[in-house]
């Protein structure tokens, strides 16, 4: 069997805060096959960005680092590389080359003083050793592929001359410039309005069908998960609490947090109806616990309607619910 594109085992990433190492994510196991899209969902602060930055080796130096676990990827040439064993220079050669990344804010993630074409051409020159002229031509081709009309002219423009949706297309072109095996998209549509968001999701699906790369799609929007992902991993307070194929998890969630999350997502049109009626959207009661003071046992227990004493005794392991679905809830059988 072909090795997966991305394999994460037992990842723990910590931040040094006030002299103490605090785990922002822990016990993370995740696999992405080629042509597969895995969504990482969870409320803000649950550790989604830390997970993706860990893969890239881009945790803020001096404050954050990977304390434990292994991350390996399958590269373009088919070889499997363990990223956690690489030095800074080797890791730099993987970034933008075998792994591309798209960030949330298209407004601020492009450099205002360089043209779009130059910013897309840069990784092509760095990693593929192409000349300025070849890389510039390739940048225009990439702009065509991400559906930007009049790409030759757009390549010569600066970020401020493009709309938000156009810019996000440009950053996707930039991330895919070296034909990576893995694309990490950290909330790529969160800053965009709904129609543009749908267009970007379609674009990503099309590009994946053409190129067959694996996608790690970070979002807090379950609607987007349903739209784009094959599998989903739900994160809470730095841990994956439920994982499985999107169809299975959505049909029958096996963790109270997933259930709460799904309940708080309004169906299309329902949100406006609720707002008109003056009823607030249903939310999960309580707050995300501070990472520095995680409760003993299950982190979700303080907010969980089903919590019992056993929940507070020890952190539950991931229970295999089916061949493909797993839940970190000791009462999964009752759900």
């Amino acid at each position, binding site marked *: 069997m072909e090795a997966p594109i991305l394999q994460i085992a037992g990842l723990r990433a910590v931040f040094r805060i006030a002299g103490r190492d605090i785990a922002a994510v822990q016990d993370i196991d995740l696999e992405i096959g080629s042509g597969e899209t895995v969504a990482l969902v969870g409320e803000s602060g649950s550790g989604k960005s830390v997970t993706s930055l860990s893969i890239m080796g881009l945790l803020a130096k001096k404050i954050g680092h990977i304390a434990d676990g292994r991350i390996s990827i399958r590269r373009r040439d088919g070889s499997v590389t363990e990223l956690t064993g690489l030095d800074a220079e080797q890791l730099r050669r993987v970034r933008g080359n075998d792994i591309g990344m798209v960030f949330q804010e298209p407004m601020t993630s*492009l*450099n205002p003083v360089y043209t779009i074409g130059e910013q897309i051409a840069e990784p092509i020159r760095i990693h593929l050793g192409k000349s300025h002229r070849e890389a510039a031509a390739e940048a225009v081709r990439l702009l065509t592929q991400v559906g930007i009309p009049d790409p030759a002219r757009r390549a010569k423009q600066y970020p401020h001359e493009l709309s938000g949706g156009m810019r996000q297309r440009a950053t996707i072109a930039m991330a895919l410039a070296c034909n990576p095996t893995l694309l990490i998209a950290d909330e790529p549509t969160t800053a965009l309005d709904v129609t543009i968001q749908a267009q970007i999701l379609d674009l990503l699906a099309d590009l994946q069908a053409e190129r067959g790369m694996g996608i790690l799609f970070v979002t807090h929007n379950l609607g987007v998960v349903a739209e784009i992902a094959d599998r989903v991993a739900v994160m809470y307070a730095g841990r994956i609490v439920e994982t499985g194929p999107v169809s299975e998890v959505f049909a029958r969630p096996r963790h109270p947090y997933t259930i709460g999350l799904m309940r708080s997502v309004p169906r299309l049109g329902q949100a406006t109806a609720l707002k008109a009626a003056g009823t607030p959207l249903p939310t999960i009661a309580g707050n995300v616990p501070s990472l520095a003071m995680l409760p003993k046992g299950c982190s979700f227990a303080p907010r969980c309607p089903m919590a019992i004493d056993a929940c507070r005794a020890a952190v539950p392991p991931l229970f295999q619910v089916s061949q493909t679905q797993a839940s970190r809830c000791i009462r999964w059988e009752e759900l």
Partner: protein
Amino acid sequence: MLSFIARRCATGLLMLVALSLLIFVLLRLAPGDPIDAYINPSVPMSASDLETLRDRLGLDQPLPLQYFGWLRAALSGDFGYSIQRSGVRVLPLVMERIGPTALLMGMGLAIAIVVGIAAGIYSAVRRNAWPDIAMSVLSFIGISSPAFLTALLGLYFFSVLLRWAPSGGMQTAGAPFSISDVLAHLILPACLLSIGHAALIMRYMRASLLEVLNQDYVRTARAKGVREFWVIIKHATRNALLPVITLIGSTVGIAIGGAIFLESVFNWPGMGLLLVNAVGTRDYPVIMGATLVIGICVILVNILTDVAYAFVDPRIQVA
């Protein structure tokens, strides 16, 4: 870009007109008959000659008309004669001093810009390491010590005590002209001129780069696999330079003050020395001529600064 430069030159021209008006009014406020400024004292003039000159200069006309007459004369390069040095026209006197002053200021500012920006980048990248803290202390001293103190101390230490550099002038008296000789005379006053500006540029550069290093596009550059050196230089520094360019532009005007002072300390044959001597002897035509030429230079530098800014920041053309 061209229309931007044209617009900028137009405002520069307006500033120049305002400056000339100011200088003219000052000239008229000076004691004595303004015609004195235009008479070559070494050539005796008859009363009728005086009348002709007065007529030609329009000194019997109302002030606004006089202003235009003076402006026309000034535009054609006629700033009159030096009162102090008989028979010497002001314009060539001023012109021959531009070179040395430009050399001193150019060298001083070049040192300040290179040292200030390099030190600022280093400090920001290695923030809170000991070299950063040492440089912060040094720059604080550099900014807060008065120019006359650094000039005199520098002169005393490096010329008098250590004898590393000549103590004044632009060339060794009697020796044939050589570039190395001029450089040897130049280096100490230029370095002393640069201290305060280098310190200020460094503080700005450090603060600006620290802010830029937190920007999303710097993270994007790292995510593309750009080498850390180029992340700093290409992606961060070019953005961080924007406020520093503005600072450098406004620094030039201040540097002129410093240069005037240093020229008299080091006996450097530039505009500053000319101006200080002219003020001492109330040589109004020279003061006016020199001031106008300095003003033109400052306005030119400001235009250049704005053009440089527009060159570094593509967004400027929209505004």
